[in-house]
Protein backbone atom coordinates (compact mmCIF):
# COMPACT_ATOMS: atom_id res chain seq x y z
CA UNK A 1 0.00 0.00 0.00
CA UNK A 2 1.39 3.37 -0.94
CA UNK A 3 0.26 6.93 -0.58
CA UNK A 4 0.70 8.78 -3.84
CA UNK A 5 0.87 12.43 -3.01
CA UNK A 6 0.69 14.72 -6.01
CA UNK A 7 0.98 18.49 -5.87
CA UNK A 8 -0.37 19.88 -9.13
CA UNK A 9 -1.72 23.03 -10.76
CA UNK A 10 -5.24 23.94 -9.59
CA UNK A 11 -6.13 24.47 -13.25
CA UNK A 12 -5.32 20.86 -14.10
CA UNK A 13 -7.12 19.33 -11.17
CA UNK A 14 -10.38 18.73 -12.97
CA UNK A 15 -8.86 16.87 -15.87
CA UNK A 16 -6.69 14.79 -13.55
CA UNK A 17 -9.66 13.93 -11.40
CA UNK A 18 -11.79 12.96 -14.36
CA UNK A 19 -9.02 10.84 -15.82
CA UNK A 20 -8.47 9.02 -12.54
CA UNK A 21 -12.20 8.42 -12.32
CA UNK A 22 -12.23 6.97 -15.82
CA UNK A 23 -9.56 4.52 -14.74
CA UNK A 24 -11.37 3.44 -11.63
CA UNK A 25 -9.36 5.42 -9.11
CA UNK A 26 -11.94 7.08 -6.89
CA UNK A 27 -10.54 7.45 -3.42
CA UNK A 28 -8.68 10.66 -2.89
CA UNK A 29 -8.22 13.41 -0.37
CA UNK A 30 -7.68 16.87 -1.76
CA UNK A 31 -6.17 19.89 -0.04
CA UNK A 32 -5.65 23.40 -1.28
CA UNK A 33 -2.05 24.26 -0.53
CA UNK A 34 0.53 26.85 -1.42
CA UNK A 35 3.76 25.66 -2.94
CA UNK A 36 7.15 26.55 -4.23
CA UNK A 37 9.41 24.38 -6.34
CA UNK A 38 11.06 24.77 -9.69
CA UNK A 39 9.41 28.15 -10.06
CA UNK A 40 12.43 29.37 -8.16
CA UNK A 41 13.62 29.64 -11.73
CA UNK A 42 10.92 32.22 -12.24
CA UNK A 43 12.00 35.66 -11.30
CA UNK A 44 9.69 38.59 -11.03
CA UNK A 45 11.45 41.77 -11.81
CA UNK A 46 10.08 44.73 -10.05
CA UNK A 47 11.42 48.18 -10.59
CA UNK A 48 14.69 46.67 -11.65
CA UNK A 49 14.88 44.58 -8.49
CA UNK A 50 14.38 40.82 -8.71
CA UNK A 51 11.78 39.80 -6.21
CA UNK A 52 11.82 36.41 -4.50
CA UNK A 53 9.02 34.28 -5.77
CA UNK A 54 6.31 33.71 -3.28
CA UNK A 55 4.11 30.72 -2.73
CA UNK A 56 1.63 29.85 -5.41
CA UNK A 57 -1.72 28.11 -4.99
CA UNK A 58 -1.53 24.41 -5.74
CA UNK A 59 -3.74 21.40 -5.18
CA UNK A 60 -2.46 18.41 -3.26
CA UNK A 61 -4.04 15.04 -4.00
CA UNK A 62 -3.40 12.17 -1.66
CA UNK A 63 -4.37 8.72 -2.88
CA UNK A 64 -3.70 5.53 -1.04
CA UNK A 65 -3.43 2.79 -3.62
CA UNK A 66 -2.11 -0.75 -3.79
CA UNK A 67 1.56 -1.12 -4.68
CA UNK A 68 0.59 -2.38 -8.09
CA UNK A 69 -1.39 0.71 -8.93
CA UNK A 70 1.26 3.27 -8.14
CA UNK A 71 2.70 3.41 -11.62
CA UNK A 72 -0.70 3.62 -13.23
CA UNK A 73 -1.79 6.50 -11.04
CA UNK A 74 1.43 8.39 -11.62
CA UNK A 75 1.02 7.87 -15.33
CA UNK A 76 -2.50 9.24 -15.31
CA UNK A 77 -1.49 12.30 -13.34
CA UNK A 78 1.40 12.98 -15.65
CA UNK A 79 -0.67 12.50 -18.75
CA UNK A 80 -3.42 14.82 -17.60
CA UNK A 81 -1.72 17.33 -15.38
CA UNK A 82 1.11 18.32 -17.66
CA UNK A 83 1.48 21.61 -19.44
CA UNK A 84 5.23 21.24 -19.90
CA UNK A 85 5.97 24.50 -18.13
CA UNK A 86 7.59 24.94 -14.71
CA UNK A 87 4.99 24.59 -12.05
CA UNK A 88 3.39 21.37 -13.21
CA UNK A 89 4.19 19.82 -9.89
CA UNK A 90 5.65 16.84 -8.11
CA UNK A 91 4.54 13.42 -7.09
CA UNK A 92 5.79 11.80 -3.91
CA UNK A 93 5.22 8.18 -3.00
CA UNK A 94 5.12 7.33 0.68
CA UNK A 95 4.85 3.91 2.28
CA UNK A 96 1.61 3.13 4.09
CA UNK A 97 1.49 0.52 6.80
CA UNK A 98 -2.19 -0.09 6.99
CA UNK A 99 -5.50 1.32 6.00
CA UNK A 100 -8.91 0.84 7.50
CA UNK A 101 -12.43 2.23 7.38
CA UNK A 102 -14.22 4.11 10.08
CA UNK A 103 -17.56 2.70 8.99
CA UNK A 104 -16.80 -0.92 9.93
CA UNK A 105 -14.37 -2.67 12.24
CA UNK A 106 -12.85 -4.73 9.47
CA UNK A 107 -9.31 -4.12 8.36
CA UNK A 108 -9.17 -3.09 4.77
CA UNK A 109 -6.01 -4.65 3.47
CA UNK A 110 -7.24 -4.89 -0.07
CA UNK A 111 -6.82 -1.16 -0.39
CA UNK A 112 -9.16 1.55 -1.42
Amino acid at each position, binding site marked *: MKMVCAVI*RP*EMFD*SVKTALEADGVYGMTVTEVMGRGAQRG*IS*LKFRGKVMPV*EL*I*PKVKIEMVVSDADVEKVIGIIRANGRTG*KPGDGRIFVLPVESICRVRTDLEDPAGP
Partner: protein
Amino acid sequence: MIDTGTTAFILICTAMVMLMTPGVGLFYGGLVRRKNLISMIALSFIAFALVSIQWVVCGYSLSFGPDILGLVGGLEYAFLQGIGMDGDGIPDLLFVAFQMVFAGLTLAIVTSGVAERIKISSFLVFGLLWTTLVYDPLAHWAWGGGWAAQFGALDFAGGTVVHISSGFSALALALVIGKRLGFGGHGMEPNNIPLALLGGALLWFGWFGFNAGSALAADGLAANAFIVTNIAAAAGALAWLCTAWIRGRPGSIGMISGAIAGLVAITPAAGFVGPMAAVVIGAGAGLFCYGALVFRVQRGLDESLDAWAIHGMGGIFGALATGVFAVAAIGGVSGLIDGNPAQLLIQLVDVGVVVAYSFGVTYVIARVVDAVMGLRVTEEEEYVGLDIAQHGESVRV
Protein backbone atom coordinates in the same frame (compact mmCIF):
# COMPACT_ATOMS: atom_id res chain seq x y z
CA MET B 1 -34.17 76.53 -7.32
CA ILE B 2 -32.92 73.53 -5.46
CA ASP B 3 -35.47 71.00 -4.26
CA THR B 4 -34.39 69.37 -1.02
CA GLY B 5 -36.25 66.13 -1.69
CA THR B 6 -34.74 65.68 -5.12
CA THR B 7 -31.32 66.72 -3.88
CA ALA B 8 -31.55 64.26 -1.01
CA PHE B 9 -32.51 61.55 -3.45
CA ILE B 10 -29.68 62.16 -5.89
CA LEU B 11 -27.11 62.52 -3.13
CA ILE B 12 -27.95 59.08 -1.83
CA CYS B 13 -28.29 57.57 -5.30
CA THR B 14 -24.79 58.80 -6.07
CA ALA B 15 -23.46 57.01 -3.01
CA MET B 16 -25.35 53.85 -4.00
CA VAL B 17 -23.90 53.89 -7.50
CA MET B 18 -20.44 54.39 -6.02
CA LEU B 19 -20.94 51.16 -4.07
CA MET B 20 -21.53 49.33 -7.34
CA THR B 21 -17.87 49.70 -8.24
CA PRO B 22 -16.52 47.61 -5.38
CA GLY B 23 -19.59 45.46 -6.09
CA VAL B 24 -18.21 44.76 -9.54
CA GLY B 25 -14.81 44.13 -7.99
CA LEU B 26 -16.16 41.57 -5.54
CA PHE B 27 -18.29 39.95 -8.22
CA TYR B 28 -15.36 39.64 -10.60
CA GLY B 29 -12.96 38.77 -7.79
CA GLY B 30 -15.11 35.84 -6.73
CA LEU B 31 -15.14 34.49 -10.28
CA VAL B 32 -11.42 34.41 -11.04
CA ARG B 33 -8.80 32.08 -9.67
CA ARG B 34 -7.68 32.61 -6.13
CA LYS B 35 -4.31 34.02 -7.13
CA ASN B 36 -6.02 36.96 -8.83
CA LEU B 37 -8.77 37.75 -6.35
CA ILE B 38 -7.14 40.82 -4.84
CA SER B 39 -6.16 42.05 -8.27
CA MET B 40 -9.76 42.16 -9.51
CA ILE B 41 -11.01 44.06 -6.47
CA ALA B 42 -8.06 46.45 -6.64
CA LEU B 43 -8.64 47.10 -10.35
CA SER B 44 -12.18 48.21 -9.64
CA PHE B 45 -11.03 50.65 -6.97
CA ILE B 46 -8.24 51.93 -9.18
CA ALA B 47 -10.63 52.41 -12.09
CA PHE B 48 -12.93 54.38 -9.87
CA ALA B 49 -10.21 56.55 -8.35
CA LEU B 50 -8.65 57.26 -11.71
CA VAL B 51 -11.90 58.28 -13.34
CA SER B 52 -12.87 60.38 -10.32
CA ILE B 53 -9.86 62.59 -10.89
CA GLN B 54 -10.10 62.58 -14.68
CA TRP B 55 -13.75 63.54 -14.39
CA VAL B 56 -13.18 66.76 -12.49
CA VAL B 57 -10.18 67.63 -14.61
CA CYS B 58 -11.77 67.23 -18.00
CA GLY B 59 -14.17 64.29 -18.22
CA TYR B 60 -17.20 66.18 -17.06
CA SER B 61 -16.55 68.98 -19.47
CA LEU B 62 -15.99 66.65 -22.39
CA SER B 63 -19.29 64.99 -21.60
CA PHE B 64 -21.46 67.89 -20.57
CA GLY B 65 -19.66 70.94 -21.85
CA PRO B 66 -21.12 73.03 -24.66
CA ASP B 67 -21.82 70.79 -27.62
CA ILE B 68 -19.27 70.65 -30.45
CA LEU B 69 -20.80 69.27 -33.64
CA GLY B 70 -22.87 66.82 -31.67
CA LEU B 71 -19.74 64.81 -30.96
CA VAL B 72 -18.21 65.98 -27.73
CA GLY B 73 -18.42 68.72 -25.14
CA GLY B 74 -16.08 71.67 -24.99
CA LEU B 75 -13.52 72.24 -22.25
CA GLU B 76 -15.32 75.20 -20.70
CA TYR B 77 -15.99 73.26 -17.50
CA ALA B 78 -12.52 71.77 -17.16
CA PHE B 79 -11.43 71.71 -13.52
CA LEU B 80 -15.12 72.27 -12.76
CA GLN B 81 -14.76 75.95 -13.51
CA GLY B 82 -18.04 77.73 -13.05
CA ILE B 83 -19.80 74.71 -11.54
CA GLY B 84 -21.31 75.70 -8.27
CA MET B 85 -23.61 74.86 -5.45
CA ASP B 86 -26.67 76.26 -7.16
CA GLY B 87 -28.62 74.52 -9.81
CA ASP B 88 -31.92 73.61 -11.26
CA GLY B 89 -33.61 71.10 -8.98
CA ILE B 90 -30.29 69.78 -7.75
CA PRO B 91 -26.97 71.58 -7.25
CA ASP B 92 -24.76 71.51 -10.33
CA LEU B 93 -21.97 69.95 -8.33
CA LEU B 94 -24.26 67.09 -7.45
CA PHE B 95 -24.98 66.43 -11.09
CA VAL B 96 -21.23 66.28 -11.64
CA ALA B 97 -20.88 63.78 -8.81
CA PHE B 98 -23.79 61.66 -9.99
CA GLN B 99 -22.31 61.41 -13.47
CA MET B 100 -18.86 60.78 -12.05
CA VAL B 101 -19.85 57.55 -10.35
CA PHE B 102 -21.34 56.27 -13.61
CA ALA B 103 -18.09 56.93 -15.43
CA GLY B 104 -16.04 55.21 -12.75
CA LEU B 105 -18.27 52.17 -12.72
CA THR B 106 -18.11 51.78 -16.47
CA LEU B 107 -14.36 51.47 -16.53
CA ALA B 108 -14.55 48.94 -13.72
CA ILE B 109 -16.86 46.76 -15.82
CA VAL B 110 -14.36 46.81 -18.66
CA THR B 111 -11.76 45.00 -16.52
CA SER B 112 -13.66 41.82 -17.33
CA GLY B 113 -11.82 41.59 -20.64
CA VAL B 114 -8.34 41.66 -19.16
CA ALA B 115 -8.91 39.74 -15.95
CA GLU B 116 -5.94 37.83 -14.57
CA ARG B 117 -3.45 39.21 -17.11
CA ILE B 118 -3.34 43.01 -17.24
CA LYS B 119 -0.33 45.03 -16.16
CA ILE B 120 -1.44 47.59 -13.65
CA SER B 121 0.63 50.43 -15.14
CA SER B 122 -0.85 49.76 -18.58
CA PHE B 123 -4.29 49.65 -17.10
CA LEU B 124 -3.81 53.12 -15.67
CA VAL B 125 -2.79 54.47 -19.06
CA PHE B 126 -5.42 52.54 -20.95
CA GLY B 127 -8.10 53.56 -18.46
CA LEU B 128 -7.28 57.21 -18.76
CA LEU B 129 -7.40 57.08 -22.54
CA TRP B 130 -10.49 54.96 -22.59
CA THR B 131 -12.61 57.06 -20.28
CA THR B 132 -11.54 60.19 -22.17
CA LEU B 133 -11.88 58.91 -25.71
CA VAL B 134 -14.70 56.42 -25.39
CA TYR B 135 -16.79 57.09 -22.34
CA ASP B 136 -16.88 60.87 -22.39
CA PRO B 137 -18.03 61.22 -26.02
CA LEU B 138 -20.65 58.51 -25.54
CA ALA B 139 -21.98 60.28 -22.46
CA HIS B 140 -22.09 63.47 -24.47
CA TRP B 141 -23.99 61.84 -27.31
CA ALA B 142 -26.73 60.47 -25.12
CA TRP B 143 -27.01 62.94 -22.28
CA GLY B 144 -24.88 65.97 -23.03
CA GLY B 145 -26.88 67.16 -25.99
CA GLY B 146 -24.92 65.20 -28.61
CA TRP B 147 -26.20 63.72 -31.84
CA ALA B 148 -27.91 60.72 -30.28
CA ALA B 149 -30.02 62.91 -28.04
CA GLN B 150 -30.83 65.20 -30.97
CA PHE B 151 -31.65 62.18 -33.06
CA GLY B 152 -34.18 61.03 -30.48
CA ALA B 153 -32.43 57.89 -29.25
CA LEU B 154 -33.72 56.78 -25.86
CA ASP B 155 -31.30 55.79 -23.15
CA PHE B 156 -32.72 56.38 -19.74
CA ALA B 157 -29.88 55.37 -17.49
CA GLY B 158 -27.03 54.24 -19.64
CA GLY B 159 -27.82 51.17 -21.73
CA THR B 160 -25.57 52.42 -24.49
CA VAL B 161 -23.24 54.72 -22.59
CA VAL B 162 -22.46 52.35 -19.76
CA HIS B 163 -23.35 48.84 -20.80
CA ILE B 164 -22.95 48.46 -24.54
CA SER B 165 -19.80 50.53 -24.35
CA SER B 166 -18.23 48.59 -21.51
CA GLY B 167 -19.28 45.24 -22.93
CA PHE B 168 -17.92 45.78 -26.42
CA SER B 169 -14.84 47.51 -25.10
CA ALA B 170 -14.14 44.52 -22.91
CA LEU B 171 -14.44 42.35 -26.00
CA ALA B 172 -12.04 44.48 -28.01
CA LEU B 173 -9.61 44.53 -25.13
CA ALA B 174 -9.83 40.77 -24.75
CA LEU B 175 -9.02 40.32 -28.43
CA VAL B 176 -5.99 42.54 -28.18
CA ILE B 177 -4.59 41.18 -24.94
CA GLY B 178 -5.23 37.57 -25.88
CA LYS B 179 -6.47 34.54 -23.98
CA ARG B 180 -5.32 33.60 -20.56
CA LEU B 181 -2.65 30.93 -20.50
CA GLY B 182 -4.34 27.58 -20.65
CA PHE B 183 -7.76 29.03 -21.44
CA GLY B 184 -9.99 26.34 -22.81
CA GLY B 185 -8.06 23.37 -21.52
CA HIS B 186 -7.51 24.42 -17.95
CA GLY B 187 -10.18 24.54 -15.31
CA MET B 188 -10.74 28.10 -14.16
CA GLU B 189 -13.44 27.69 -11.58
CA PRO B 190 -14.65 30.60 -9.48
CA ASN B 191 -12.60 30.76 -6.32
CA ASN B 192 -15.22 32.27 -4.08
CA ILE B 193 -18.86 32.07 -5.10
CA PRO B 194 -20.26 33.62 -1.91
CA LEU B 195 -18.13 36.70 -2.54
CA ALA B 196 -19.42 36.88 -6.10
CA LEU B 197 -22.98 36.68 -4.79
CA LEU B 198 -22.27 39.44 -2.31
CA GLY B 199 -20.91 41.54 -5.16
CA GLY B 200 -24.06 40.78 -7.11
CA ALA B 201 -26.20 41.84 -4.18
CA LEU B 202 -24.39 45.16 -3.97
CA LEU B 203 -24.91 45.63 -7.70
CA TRP B 204 -28.61 44.95 -7.42
CA PHE B 205 -28.85 47.39 -4.52
CA GLY B 206 -26.83 50.11 -6.22
CA TRP B 207 -28.74 49.70 -9.44
CA PHE B 208 -31.76 51.28 -7.82
CA GLY B 209 -29.72 54.44 -7.44
CA PHE B 210 -28.46 54.01 -10.97
CA ASN B 211 -31.83 53.69 -12.65
CA ALA B 212 -34.22 55.50 -10.35
CA GLY B 213 -31.68 58.24 -9.78
CA SER B 214 -31.52 58.78 -13.52
CA ALA B 215 -34.96 60.32 -13.27
CA LEU B 216 -33.05 63.15 -11.61
CA ALA B 217 -36.09 63.71 -9.45
CA ALA B 218 -37.81 61.96 -6.58
CA ASP B 219 -41.05 61.52 -8.42
CA GLY B 220 -43.33 59.06 -10.13
CA LEU B 221 -40.87 58.46 -12.90
CA ALA B 222 -38.21 57.49 -10.37
CA ALA B 223 -40.72 55.16 -8.75
CA ASN B 224 -41.48 53.60 -12.11
CA ALA B 225 -37.79 53.18 -12.84
CA PHE B 226 -37.30 51.66 -9.43
CA ILE B 227 -39.97 49.02 -9.65
CA VAL B 228 -39.25 48.00 -13.23
CA THR B 229 -35.59 47.64 -12.25
CA ASN B 230 -36.46 45.20 -9.55
CA ILE B 231 -38.90 43.30 -11.72
CA ALA B 232 -36.45 42.93 -14.58
CA ALA B 233 -33.74 41.72 -12.22
CA ALA B 234 -36.06 39.14 -10.71
CA ALA B 235 -37.32 37.98 -14.08
CA GLY B 236 -33.79 37.77 -15.45
CA ALA B 237 -32.63 35.73 -12.48
CA LEU B 238 -35.48 33.26 -12.78
CA ALA B 239 -35.20 33.00 -16.56
CA TRP B 240 -31.48 32.22 -16.50
CA LEU B 241 -31.92 29.87 -13.57
CA CYS B 242 -34.56 27.86 -15.40
CA THR B 243 -32.63 27.77 -18.66
CA ALA B 244 -29.54 26.55 -16.89
CA TRP B 245 -31.70 24.03 -15.12
CA ILE B 246 -33.02 22.56 -18.32
CA ARG B 247 -29.49 22.06 -19.54
CA GLY B 248 -28.00 20.97 -16.21
CA ARG B 249 -28.15 22.39 -12.75
CA PRO B 250 -29.46 25.75 -11.61
CA GLY B 251 -26.27 27.36 -10.39
CA SER B 252 -26.20 30.45 -8.26
CA ILE B 253 -23.74 32.18 -10.55
CA GLY B 254 -26.22 31.70 -13.38
CA MET B 255 -28.97 33.11 -11.23
CA ILE B 256 -27.05 36.26 -10.36
CA SER B 257 -25.83 36.61 -13.95
CA GLY B 258 -29.45 36.51 -15.04
CA ALA B 259 -30.31 39.19 -12.53
CA ILE B 260 -27.54 41.39 -13.87
CA ALA B 261 -28.66 40.72 -17.44
CA GLY B 262 -32.15 41.85 -16.46
CA LEU B 263 -30.76 44.94 -14.75
CA VAL B 264 -28.66 45.82 -17.78
CA ALA B 265 -31.55 45.42 -20.17
CA ILE B 266 -33.95 47.52 -18.14
CA THR B 267 -31.39 50.30 -17.79
CA PRO B 268 -32.16 52.18 -21.01
CA ALA B 269 -35.86 51.40 -20.65
CA ALA B 270 -36.50 52.15 -17.01
CA GLY B 271 -38.14 55.52 -17.57
CA PHE B 272 -40.10 54.49 -20.64
CA VAL B 273 -41.74 51.13 -19.97
CA GLY B 274 -44.16 49.75 -17.41
CA PRO B 275 -43.97 46.83 -14.98
CA MET B 276 -45.38 44.16 -17.29
CA ALA B 277 -42.98 45.07 -20.06
CA ALA B 278 -40.26 44.79 -17.45
CA VAL B 279 -41.12 41.16 -16.86
CA VAL B 280 -40.71 40.50 -20.55
CA ILE B 281 -37.53 42.54 -20.88
CA GLY B 282 -35.94 40.96 -17.83
CA ALA B 283 -36.79 37.41 -18.78
CA GLY B 284 -35.84 38.02 -22.38
CA ALA B 285 -32.50 39.45 -21.37
CA GLY B 286 -31.86 36.45 -19.16
CA LEU B 287 -32.37 34.10 -22.09
CA PHE B 288 -30.58 36.28 -24.61
CA CYS B 289 -27.49 36.82 -22.49
CA TYR B 290 -27.40 33.16 -21.55
CA GLY B 291 -27.27 32.44 -25.24
CA ALA B 292 -24.57 35.04 -25.78
CA LEU B 293 -22.49 33.52 -23.03
CA VAL B 294 -22.81 30.04 -24.48
CA PHE B 295 -21.84 31.44 -27.87
CA ARG B 296 -18.81 33.21 -26.39
CA VAL B 297 -17.63 30.03 -24.72
CA GLN B 298 -18.18 27.96 -27.85
CA ARG B 299 -16.21 30.42 -29.93
CA GLY B 300 -13.37 30.14 -27.48
CA LEU B 301 -13.34 33.87 -26.78
CA ASP B 302 -11.68 34.70 -23.49
CA GLU B 303 -13.68 37.78 -22.63
CA SER B 304 -13.17 36.38 -19.21
CA LEU B 305 -15.97 37.58 -16.97
CA ASP B 306 -18.65 38.11 -19.58
CA ALA B 307 -19.02 41.84 -19.67
CA TRP B 308 -19.65 41.39 -23.37
CA ALA B 309 -22.31 38.70 -23.02
CA ILE B 310 -24.10 40.37 -20.15
CA HIS B 311 -23.47 44.11 -20.40
CA GLY B 312 -22.81 44.37 -24.11
CA MET B 313 -25.48 42.04 -25.44
CA GLY B 314 -27.85 42.81 -22.58
CA GLY B 315 -27.43 46.48 -23.40
CA ILE B 316 -28.32 45.88 -27.04
CA PHE B 317 -31.32 43.85 -26.02
CA GLY B 318 -32.45 46.59 -23.66
CA ALA B 319 -31.91 49.42 -26.12
CA LEU B 320 -33.99 47.66 -28.73
CA ALA B 321 -36.60 46.60 -26.20
CA THR B 322 -36.93 50.24 -25.25
CA GLY B 323 -37.84 50.95 -28.86
CA VAL B 324 -40.42 48.19 -28.69
CA PHE B 325 -42.02 48.66 -25.31
CA ALA B 326 -41.81 52.40 -24.67
CA VAL B 327 -45.17 53.90 -23.73
CA ALA B 328 -45.93 57.58 -24.09
CA ALA B 329 -47.86 57.56 -20.83
CA ILE B 330 -44.70 56.83 -18.89
CA GLY B 331 -41.77 58.56 -20.51
CA GLY B 332 -43.48 60.66 -23.13
CA VAL B 333 -42.20 58.60 -26.05
CA SER B 334 -43.92 55.71 -27.79
CA GLY B 335 -42.25 52.58 -29.05
CA LEU B 336 -43.23 49.98 -31.59
CA ILE B 337 -46.13 48.50 -29.68
CA ASP B 338 -47.43 51.90 -28.68
CA GLY B 339 -47.59 52.74 -32.37
CA ASN B 340 -44.23 54.31 -33.17
CA PRO B 341 -42.11 51.85 -35.18
CA ALA B 342 -39.69 54.61 -36.08
CA GLN B 343 -38.38 54.60 -32.54
CA LEU B 344 -37.10 51.07 -32.94
CA LEU B 345 -35.17 52.19 -35.98
CA ILE B 346 -33.67 55.07 -34.10
CA GLN B 347 -32.63 52.70 -31.35
CA LEU B 348 -31.10 50.37 -33.90
CA VAL B 349 -29.00 53.10 -35.44
CA ASP B 350 -27.91 54.32 -32.03
CA VAL B 351 -26.93 50.81 -30.97
CA GLY B 352 -25.04 50.25 -34.18
CA VAL B 353 -23.02 53.41 -33.88
CA VAL B 354 -22.24 52.87 -30.22
CA VAL B 355 -21.18 49.27 -30.80
CA ALA B 356 -18.94 50.27 -33.68
CA TYR B 357 -17.47 53.29 -31.92
CA SER B 358 -16.76 51.64 -28.60
CA PHE B 359 -15.39 48.45 -30.11
CA GLY B 360 -13.36 50.26 -32.73
CA VAL B 361 -11.85 53.00 -30.63
CA THR B 362 -11.12 50.66 -27.75
CA TYR B 363 -9.40 48.28 -30.13
CA VAL B 364 -7.16 51.05 -31.37
CA ILE B 365 -6.38 52.37 -27.89
CA ALA B 366 -5.59 48.87 -26.71
CA ARG B 367 -3.28 48.23 -29.66
CA VAL B 368 -1.45 51.47 -29.10
CA VAL B 369 -0.97 50.90 -25.39
CA ASP B 370 0.09 47.34 -26.10
CA ALA B 371 2.64 48.49 -28.66
CA VAL B 372 4.02 51.21 -26.45
CA MET B 373 4.22 49.57 -23.06
CA GLY B 374 2.70 46.12 -23.28
CA LEU B 375 -0.75 45.41 -21.90
CA ARG B 376 0.06 42.06 -20.54
CA VAL B 377 2.15 40.73 -17.70
CA THR B 378 4.83 38.18 -18.45
CA GLU B 379 4.04 34.51 -18.60
CA GLU B 380 5.74 34.01 -15.27
CA GLU B 381 3.73 36.73 -13.64
CA GLU B 382 0.51 35.33 -15.02
CA TYR B 383 1.40 31.91 -13.66
CA VAL B 384 2.26 33.30 -10.27
CA GLY B 385 -0.91 35.37 -10.27
CA LEU B 386 -1.44 39.10 -10.29
CA ASP B 387 -1.98 39.35 -6.55
CA ILE B 388 1.64 38.54 -5.92
CA ALA B 389 3.10 39.72 -9.18
CA GLN B 390 1.40 43.09 -9.34
CA HIS B 391 0.45 43.86 -5.76
CA GLY B 392 2.82 41.80 -3.66
CA GLU B 393 -0.12 40.47 -1.66
CA SER B 394 -1.93 37.19 -1.47
CA VAL B 395 -5.08 35.53 -0.28
CA ARG B 396 -4.39 32.76 2.17
CA VAL B 397 -5.95 29.41 1.55
